[in-house]
């Protein structure tokens, strides 16, 4: 998904993003590529990705329940929109 929020995946968006990821109940990982993923429930780790506006990120949900995963991805996307 694309990070649209002007400041990038910065303090406040990161905190909200992590909050949603934490509530998922299964592990979620984020990164620029599938080879460098960090724990999406950690606002600190999200910050260290230094994702800027306009960059795309991979989000990996470790669950077999596809419908829940899609809903969650929508929620995550919403918090990095403008």
């Amino acid at each position: 998904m694309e990070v649209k929020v002007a400041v990038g995946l910065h303090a406040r968006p990161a905190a909200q993003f992590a909050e949603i990821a934490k509530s998922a109940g299964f592990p979620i990982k984020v990164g620029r590529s599938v080879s460098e993923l960090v724990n999406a429930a950690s606002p600190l780790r999200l910050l260290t990705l230094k994702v800027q506006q306009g960059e795309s990120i991979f989000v990996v949900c470790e669950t077999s329940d596809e419908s829940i995963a899609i809903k969650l991805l929508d929620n995550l996307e919403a918090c990095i929109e403008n």
Partner: protein
Amino acid sequence: MADIAGYGVGDQPVIGKIFLIQRNSADSHKFLASLPKEESLAKLKEAIQIVASDFSNSINNSKDSTLQEILSAQLAILTDPELSSVIIDSINSGAALSSAIDSAINEFTSLLVGGSAEFEARIADLKEIGSRLIDAAAGESRKLQFPNEGEWIVVSDDLSPLETSQFTPAIKGVVTRDGGPTSHTAIVCRQLRISAVVGCGDISKLHSNELITLDPADNAVYFGEKTIENSGTWWKQLPIQKKSIFRPLGNVGSVKDANLVRSSKAQGVGLLRTELLFLDYANEPSVKEQINIYTDVVSHCPDGEIIFRTLDAGTDKPIPFLGLGKEENPALGLRGQRISWIRPEFYENQLLAIRETGSKFSNRKISVMAPMIANKEEAISFANSASRLGFNSIGIMVEVPSIIEEISTLPENIQFLSIGTNDLSQYLFAADRQNSSVAHLLNPWQPILLKTILRICNLSKTRGIKVGICGEAASDPLLSAVLIGLGVESLSAGAGAVSDLVAISQVLSPSQAEAAANIALNSISAIDAQRSVKNLLTSK
């Protein structure tokens, strides 16, 4: 000329070696380095909770939504399990708590370097979180080891209640950078009868283990050893008067105070601070609980009148169960009797509990007074509530200057006034009690304060009501003579200062008090007034 000048507390000169309390992370690091692994882990958990609750409080108290978002983001970082797990890992591999925190913070900040300005800015946040964690871990449990032998003078920016509670008998004096005559440190030192010079502004020239001399009566600190003529006990060796010209009373906030005031032979309690009895209560105590608390204290008080003061709280003197919010200017806000505007039932219950307590001691005079009364309407409202419950000795405190203009027209059921000199000074001089930059204005020797007390006494005479003083000014042995000369009928001192006050009440003559008052009233400054009265009373 003093080498360092501040505000003196007490009147005994002391000489001692400097015990310097330095507050910086270096100290915290040293303390945390000595903790074993298990304790480090527990401390870390505790520190995260402490700092997190600081953040939560700031978030709740902030009205600015942008600031709330920033603080929430910082709180999210602080409580991020990834942060604590890195710290825990390095503690488990043998690192001390402080260096484990430092290295975890460094690890994350190095990952943020090279991003845009927004990311670089988070480095400062992280570093702040790190240092707050270290301070929180060290602060709560850092035990100051005061020396047990020798004669020492504690020098510090200021002292917390926890620190003053750890003083050993070897601590003979205190010098602080901050604070004023009514700061916590000053009040405690007066209570413990330790000489102090507070609010010195610059203490950087005072170094550990060097000798210094304090002359609190002259508000002075001197480098090295200096002989000071002791004027502290002017009343000793004076002849006992046939009749005492004032009642020496004591201030009581606990059973311990009550015992001390009684053994000092006070003739009663001029101020029973009910708020101090409630500090530990998370929930409002019931009328029955209050009666038990009051009965316990009263049974330890000396014979004579006991003046209960209704709850004197505020956001600067918090009582948990009142649930007061945050105020920009707490000293000018909902404070003292004003809280009855929002919690009338608490004040009614309290008066009822005091009344019920009084009925158990039917041979005693139990009086009641309210703090922070600002106008006649408030005075009448309080006096009528107390009258309805059957109190027949009712008073108000004079600390808000506006009430002075109504003294001569106060209703019949108000029979006494009690001057709270600390707050009266604060409001009269527009000088915040918490701000050491304006502390000199709060010096109780200010001739204008003394003139105001004279005016209160004169107006009260026209109504035939008595005036007492329960502020810190009553604990100063030199000033006590002046206050009596101004027309005050009773002085109520902090428990530790009562025995001197009792001794003074036996020897002070009317002519001496009058002369002291006249000299002080006609002085050009507080320092001048204090010096002139000292000369008068100590010259034989």
